[in-house]
């Protein structure tokens, strides 16, 4: 037993590059789907199909950095402008429009949570940040930001116990 352990470590080190190479390849359709055409998306989904249906539990896609399709990026820019102009209601509207185009983009949900927090709608902000977390996959940075946002919202709403708990969760992602 004691002999095999160093060997295993070496093996893991050796095989890491393989893993590193293969992971993005497997996940590339997912990562690209946001910016590429749905037509391509369909094809890639078909390509992935058989692999998915053969097992009950499909592979998990690797976390992606904030990535938006062109229209969503445009809407988020618009939201930023509206936010700067202190028209938070309009900014919320723009982000909601973005969510209709990319309903499962965790970053867009986070953005909405942030605007709601800024509006002082703390309960709403907490729920939206939780929603963002549920879609964040392995994006630790985003998950941490969501917990921080929840902590701030709880604190602003006077719920310091929940705020402390959320802060602890955020720290786990440092």
């Amino acid at each position: 037993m004691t002999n095999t352990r160093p060997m295993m470590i070496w093996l893991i080190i050796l095989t890491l590059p393989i893993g590193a190479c293969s992971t993005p390849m497997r996940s590339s359709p997912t990562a690209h789907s946001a910016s590429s055409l749905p037509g391509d998306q369909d094809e890639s989904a078909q390509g992935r199909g058989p692999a998915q249906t053969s097992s009950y539990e499909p592979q998990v896609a690797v976390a992606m950095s904030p990535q938006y399709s062109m229209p969503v990026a445009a809407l988020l820019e618009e939201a930023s402008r509206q936010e700067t102009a202190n028209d938070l209601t309009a900014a919320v509207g723009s982000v909601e429009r973005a969510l209709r185009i990319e309903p499962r983009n965790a970053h867009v949900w986070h953005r909405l949570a942030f605007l709601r927090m800024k509006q002082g709608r703390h309960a709403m902000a907490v729920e939206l940040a939780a929603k963002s977390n549920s879609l964040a996959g392995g994006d630790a940075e985003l998950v941490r930001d969501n917990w921080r946002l929840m902590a701030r919202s709880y604190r602003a709403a006077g719920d310091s116990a929940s705020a402390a708990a959320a802060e602890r969760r955020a720290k786990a992602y440092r």
Partner: protein
Amino acid sequence: MAKSRKNAGKPHSKSRTGKKTPARKSRTGRGRRRTGKSGRRLSRIVALLVFLGAISGIYLLYLDHKVRTGFEGKRHAVPAQVYGRPLELYPGAKLSPGQLEAEFQRLGYRKVTYPKRPAAWSRNRDRIIVRTRPFAFWDGQESGRYLDLGFRGGVLSSMVDGNGRPQALVRLETPKIGSIYPAHNEDRVPVVLDEVPEILIDMLITIEDRSFYTHHGVDLKAILRAVWANLKAGGVVQGGSTLTQQLAKNLYLTREKSLWRKANEAVMALIIERRFSKDEILSAYLNEIYLGQDGNRAIHGFGLASHFYFNRPLDELDLPRLALLVGMIRGPSLYDPRIHPERAGKRRNLVLDVLHRQDVITAEQKNRAAKAPLGVVSRGKKGGSGYPAFLDLVRRQLRRDYRPEDLTSEGLRIFTTLDPEIQQQTEISLSERLQKLEKRHGLPAGKLEGAAVVARSEGGEILAVVGGRRAGYAGFNRALDARRPIGSLIKPVVYLAALMRPDRYNLVTKLSDEPIHIGGRDGSVWSPRNFDLKNHGEVPLHLALSKSYNVATVRLGMEIGLKPALELLEQLGINRPVQAIPALFLGAVSLSPLEVAQIYQTFAAGGFRSPLRAIREVQAADGSQLQRYPLTVRQAAPVGPVYLLNRNLQEVVRTGTARSLSGFLGDQLNVAGKTGTTNDLKDSWFAGFSGNEVAVVWVGRDDNKPAGLTGAQGALRVWGDIMRRMAPVPLDLPRPESVEAVWIDPVSGLRADARCEGAQEYPFIRGSAPETKAPCVAETDDPLRSLFRRIFE
């Protein structure tokens, strides 16, 4: 009858007061006897005149009051306009040229060879060029644009402006889907005088009332002229009414023809002229004049008529179309261009002739216009809206926040979530499939009914509501009001309640499917049975749900208890009281398709409930925003267990009771869903979701007799048709952090690894997977070999 009885009562009461009057008269009469006979007569005449004067004075005051209140009131009584969702154009959008064409048609855009003006488009195979109309959204103005659009494989692949610059996103204007008008059925699309084509005003004055700007409400010369013309012709061929008189008639009077009414009309016209300016009168005329009938909806005003006959705003009408409308004033039903196109055409050309003779238009204009087709669009569905079921829902949601009179008179603009394209496809899917089902199963024709609701999974916006198989007709709205037992559609709630206790239940937990007998308080015994009447022994939890085993479900439900199931149901958005009986576990609760959609929306959104919404914004007539109905989420169930449930619901479609769906959708979409069937095959249900949409379908009979279809035979097929027509995106469920995948040996239900024959990975809440290893896992568990296997598998 009622009238005559009322009249019969009047003389009686008069005679009673009449008894007193002579007595009074006799007293005053004694004093007057001294004055002569002639004086007496004179004074009587004077008294009579004073009396008549007072009466007519009072009557005039009454008319004046009526004119003012009526004029003011009507001027503001603008029904709420209801709009569907705006179509968002962006490269990558799932949109075919045909779908865009359909949207253009809804918006009243014209197909031309090259669009030079707004609201026009042209198409060359996979390329569409359009000039859009500007539109005032609640969050700002969307300007009119020139767009060059390219399509590829059902996708909008490129979008550039006039200078070839790529455009990221353009929002088309919202299609109008209906209006909310009061009970007396007067719909209206108001127009402002400044925005009305000048030629229309010229036409009106030339054709109907040439001395409009000089008379005081009545034009005696015109009346005499008309009388003379009518005498000559031996019938009514010409009217002498001024625009003001016509307005008075439209505003205050019935359509009855009598001299008394004519006199009233004339007096009111005089009052109107005293009270209001010519522009105000003209403006009211444009908005009030009666121009046709659509079922029980009266078409008043040029704004609405323009939409009703031509499906475009008034300021986009060309000369022949305007002439057609002006010609119709004399007799909207006589010259109805849809019923009597030839007569209407002749009338239009007569109008054009007169306009030319009066130098309003040139000979060339006249000739060109006279050759033009009538240009009338085919009549939409009755009642002005093709979406009675959806509008019904909009009205109900608005009623919580607005008074009925505000909705029917304040000119609100209501922006809804309806997607007319999806609505149409859903309607077609339901009506066509029901017909096929009746044929295929030898059911009596026309007896099957159905309802469907389609919504966005994330955010809960309602995209389509179909209340019955004849969707265009208002009537019993089954999507909202048909509350029927939901049968097995309840099971996911029971299983989710179990999976929320990961210490006790996971997807491979063995459940007993052995017969169970439950005693009721009244001494009765309930013995639920499986649909196939078989006993399946011990089954893993996921299989019990995917095969919809009743007995195993009841046993599971009894283990977790009614209270947690009921509480979860409430969390999922069901607010009505639900009877706490064991039969609840098999769906002994009656819900509407809309309520079921709320439950499944929460599943589809990973446990986050968004109240299903039909409205996005409400805008006041002046464009200011009154209210937003924002996107909200509330976590109704923890993410991990919902994920397990949704995987299980995918299994239902892959290998369970809904596997026949693959015939509709193929295997690639991984949709999740559940069938539901109630006793004696009375109700056939299917509820499920794809990547973006959640949909619920009910099929059954209004008389509650057996429909003769299981959930899979009936509702599932409608559902499959709906989804196929929408070309949905696949359902990819992101695995939450709290969930891990573990290999399980199907035979023992114990922990396995990839080497085990037939082993599968199942999702578990972290730490809840079985620890015990299955016999197939070799005792000489070599970690090195297993590592290699994992890497190269």
